[in-house]
């Protein structure tokens, strides 16, 4: 798979360890990384920065990731969304994809899986 050019990627997760780890993976690939710890912060950052890609948790304080997917798409239609969640039942995956996500990665995730999924999402 061809290496995608560097992109602006927003990582949304209430767990700081996960954000830190994803930042490390993505920075090593040459991407610039933004962070948000809940749905409200995520929406504000998408509106102001229009990132190329959002890595989005579903179960978060204040507002669910599931709920903000359509709002992210409205605020920045070109932004692609990859969901990262342990809540990976068929109905929820379908709902996330129908709401506008372009991919779903189950937690726990592996470094290589993130790198490959991000490359694919950026190349699509």
């Amino acid at each position: 798979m061809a290496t995608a050019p560097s992109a602006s990627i927003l990582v949304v997760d209430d767990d700081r360890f996960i954000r830190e780890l994803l930042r490390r993976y993505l920075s090593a690939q040459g991407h610039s990384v933004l962070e948000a710890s809940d749905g409200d912060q995520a929406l504000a950052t998408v509106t102001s920065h229009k990132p190329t890609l959002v890595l989005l948790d579903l179960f978060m304080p204040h507002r669910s990731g599931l709920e903000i997917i359509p709002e992210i798409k409205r605020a920045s239609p070109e932004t692609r969304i990859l969901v990262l969640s342990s809540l990976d039942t068929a109905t929820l995956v379908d709902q996330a994809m129908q709401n506008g996500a372009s991919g779903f990665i189950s937690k726990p995730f592996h470094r290589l899986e993130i790198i490959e999924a991000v490359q694919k999402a950026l190349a699509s």
Partner: protein
Amino acid sequence: MARYWIADMKGRVLGPVTLDALHELVGHRRLPPIARISRDGGAWAAADTYPELLAVFARVAEAQRRAQQVQEAEQLRLETDLAREKPLHEVFGVPAGSGRDVIRGAYFVMVKRFHPDRVPRDSPPELRSAYEEMFELLASRMREADKLPAATPPPAPAAAPASAAPASQPRSAAPTPAPTYGPEEFVGIERRGEDRVEANVRVTIRNVAMFSDHYLLNISMGGVFLASKEVLPLGTMLDLIFQFEGRKAPIHAEGRVVWENAEDRPKQPRGFGVKFTKLEPEDRTFVEDFVRDAQARLAREAKEKEKARSGR
């Protein structure tokens, strides 16, 4: 169709979801204990407010659950034995002749179900070990697949110029360690605090450029919190040695720093949380029994206090 928002003890929210989606999440043991429920994402009520949800969150009888888990363990063992002998493409359900990248994509989809973090804490040992065996088998078959070319070879005769050969797959410039696909390489589910109890156990850390001793502040079935003036970076891998009172042999474990508290607070002094990434089965059983006993003792003490208070 009715829609619900649910919130756990930490205030994390999921919604809107349908009744069917909730059934599915509970059935697959994907949800933590639910504290509040809403029909509009704004007004919240106790989890038992909505009669239609009582059946969703009703606990399956202990005996029935145990029988299901033992049956699941037996089935899993059979599947693991079969997967040992099958060719790679059959194990991972991909077309024959698939390259490493295709197999790896299928592997990641398949392996999550068996990750130790996905096994409920109250699972019987036979189910836990059946999951571990399948996880390790899939990891070893994936290491085998890593020796294959990255891409699936094209089906047509090789009319393409030499420069288009599969060997020209671009590689990342940054050197990264080869994956082993061990459970510690997968991250994303941290269950800290769910079953934590206070304890006074001596812990020695021996691989952070020094030997350091700590008295453990609290322990759960998945990890420990260590009070320390020095806070280690997130992700730091540690070798830990525990010396429990009343147990002669020390317990050796490996763990990863998954959170830190850089400030001293009354209920949580400065220190860091470590998640176990490797613990021998008999040591895990010891830690689980230790935590369960402490929880039972706390529950008894709380009950006695309550009794004394109401009897006054």
